[in-house]
């Protein structure tokens, strides 16, 4: 059985000892105590476990840790720079885009992935790319506003 001994997460190297077939979510939460990524379904249907792998969103619950051993993993814990929140995090606060917030880290990671790829995403494109993320509290309208706000902020800071 192959074992993964190191993972690159949030810009640092974590030592671990995980079966390569273990799910990334399980390793993050149980081995490395990075609990910001959430379990919601275990079948890639709800998006609560979303992380970035080389900048792109992945459902960590159905990702083999062996597949990401050599890659750059970003979790919600690694998104802010010191005290400065990522524009998407800040926008979720500004729009009050949460209730219980259990879906929030997955929503934010999905949105970051989208805006990394396409900063001028339209409202419809944002909604489409978030379709795989479930919010049971029903804050979807606020989440869409937050992602649009973040897109605008990121565009402005670039110029």
């Amino acid at each position, binding site marked *: 059985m192959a074992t993964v001994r190191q993972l690159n997460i949030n810009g640092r190297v974590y030592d671990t000892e995980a079966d390569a077939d273990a799910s990334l979510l*399980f390793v993050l939460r149980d081995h490395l105590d990075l609990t910001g990524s959430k379990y919601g379904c275990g079948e890639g249907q709800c998006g609560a476990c979303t992380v970035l792998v080389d900048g792109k969103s992945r459902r960590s619950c159905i990702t083999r840790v062996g597949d990401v051993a050599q890659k750059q993993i970003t979790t919600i814990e690694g998104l802010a720079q010191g005290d400065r929140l990522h524009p998407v995090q800040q926008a979720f606060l500004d729009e009050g885009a949460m209730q219980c917030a259990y879906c929030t880290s997955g929503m934010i990671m999905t949105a970051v992935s989208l805006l990394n790829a396409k900063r001028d995403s339209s409202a419809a494109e944002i909604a489409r790319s978030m379709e795989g993320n479930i919010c049971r509290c029903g804050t979807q309208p606020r989440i869409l506003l937050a992602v649009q706000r973040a897109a605008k902020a990121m565009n402005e800071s670039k110029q």
Partner: protein
Amino acid sequence: MSTQFDLESAWEPERYELAAAPTYHFDIDRREFFRFLGAGVLIVGVLKEARALQESGANQGAASLPKEISAWLHIGEDGRITVYTGKVEVGQNIRTSLTQAVAEELHVPVDAIHLVMGDTKLTPYDRGTFGSRTTPDMNLQLRKVAAAARDTLIVLAADQWQVDRKRLTAADGKIRDSESKRTVEYGALVKGKQLTEALPAEDPLIPAAQWKVAGQPLPKVDGRDFVTGKHRYPSDQKLPDMLYGKVLRPSFFGATLSSLNTQDAEKIPGVVVVHDGNFVGVAAPSAEIASRALATIRAEWKSQPQISNKELFAYLKNNPAQGSGPLDSPFRYEIGSIDKAFASADHRLQQTYTTNYIAHAPLEPRAALAQWSGDDLTVWTGTQRPFGVREELAQTFHMPEERVRVLMPDMGSGYGGKHTGETAIEAARLARAAKRPVKVMWTREEEFTWAYFRPAAVIDVSSAMRQDGKITGWEFHNYNSGAAGIPTFYDIENQRIEFHPTRYPLRQGSYRALAATANHFARESYMDELAHLVKMDPLEFRLKNLKNERLRAVFEAAARKFGWEQAKTMGHGFGMGGGFEKGGNVATCAEVVVDRKSGEVKVVRLVTAFECGAIVNPDGLRNQLEGANIMALGGALFEAIEFANGQILNGRFSDYRVPRFSDVPVIETVMIDRKDIPSAGAGESSLMGVAPAIANAIFDASGMRLRSLPLVANGLQIA
């Protein structure tokens, strides 16, 4: 106020808040009672501010809420305010609205306040966070506590300075002398001591019209912890040396073990296997090993044949309750003479409505971390009833409640679905055997199968009506789902309203708004049918039969914002529904578009008007209204639990459809702020208008009357 509403106060609002029957009965081996030899176990998640003296209030019953300020509020030497409440934060953002209430009366900045919530050792007893009681009860209670604390601080300062207390005012965490201009901070005044004063019998609170902090929008007070992943939910709790627990689930509901072989599991290093009655579980050093161990267990289960969802409604109608469970107490209300009204009616109409079982599916499944220390038990778990779970644990393990502590870290929602303590019991049972802390976290499939469901309903409605649209007689029978929201708010002289408890095939319990959703769906769909029968506009028809001003106001406000009178695009339909429950008045207008070729129904717009007295946090309220509309949309359109022979057939998100981004319509809200009326809760009543509004809009668009929830699980079946 019409006579119907007077009924409301006489009702116990929580009568139908259900605590499903206990899951476990253990025959605990006395030898398993043990004491920890190793001390010094580090507890995470316990607040440093916690003080032993808070225990004074924690073990009192509901009848004797502590009267001393100190049981509810503590002022630190640094001026930090700690507030203790048994209510819990499940996403409804009461941590924020209760903070506002305290800030308002105590005159301190919002960020000086921290709430300790739902910790049975530290907070005064509380029956639970349900029934939309936090705002009418706890918000008021904490305002009284904060006002009393403020007045006590003024007395303290007056004594210290030897001045007339009338010269002193409280503002921004300080007492100020208006003549000498000197000030003292609360923290310096109290010096870390307790405010042992009793709450005065009467202390005028700041009227809503003069609120400065309450009544204003305030974002989630600890929002930053959530967008950074820092907050630790129940499922994120950990202890050193903790094991991970898994429970062997029966193959069918109501099954009993006929054979069991756990030998292979026991051979796995580090695995503890527990078999106690019908409970079989394992604890292991990792969740992975626990799952592996569980998979090696060979068990056979015996069960009786059980019905499927296809036979559900006939079953409910034909099987009156025989037991004495929480749903087994009937309700009957009768005024005037129904028979006379029917005999002299111009129109009589009888219809039947049904609602299927649905699941809460909170995004965070049930989780608990249990730790025994000698004969004392501590459990961190996600529940809306920490004190109720404490009671369940104490009963299950035959121990006094004082030896059980339940803590509730702000959790990943509940919607009425987390009233029970089964996960806490599972973790505690395993921890007891393992002599180590054990965490149990349910899988999504377990949550869909072994939690409980919103009860299904059969509802028969009939009425007598005059030619001019005045309803003269009203008969309404709900089978199984409950009596919440069952009285009609329309002014009808002759009524017979009954709730009939029945036997039921699935474990059922509370769900946000309880039976009010089913009862409003039936009543408001039926009102639409009556309106069409006499060819009246549905809004005009309602208003003709409705005197209550608050309800009229929300119906009219929703219609106005929606543009009820405006012309419709081809294929589009308008519908409305509304009502009154738990102090909240709601009306929702829906616009749908029906594709007659494909049968696809799309809700394009929902406009909800809401009034629940003085608004404490306008942004929090709007968030609740929007969320309630979306959650209700799922139950209205497509959510349904499928089951057969003691098994759930669609217990995962790939099979059970919940609202997603593409389902979300344009949502508009109208919030009527009645500063002259005490604040009521909003998390439940706000759901009730959605299903009938959509059903009525589908009729308007297609001419098809749908009388069963969900309305279009497989699209509209156009004949």
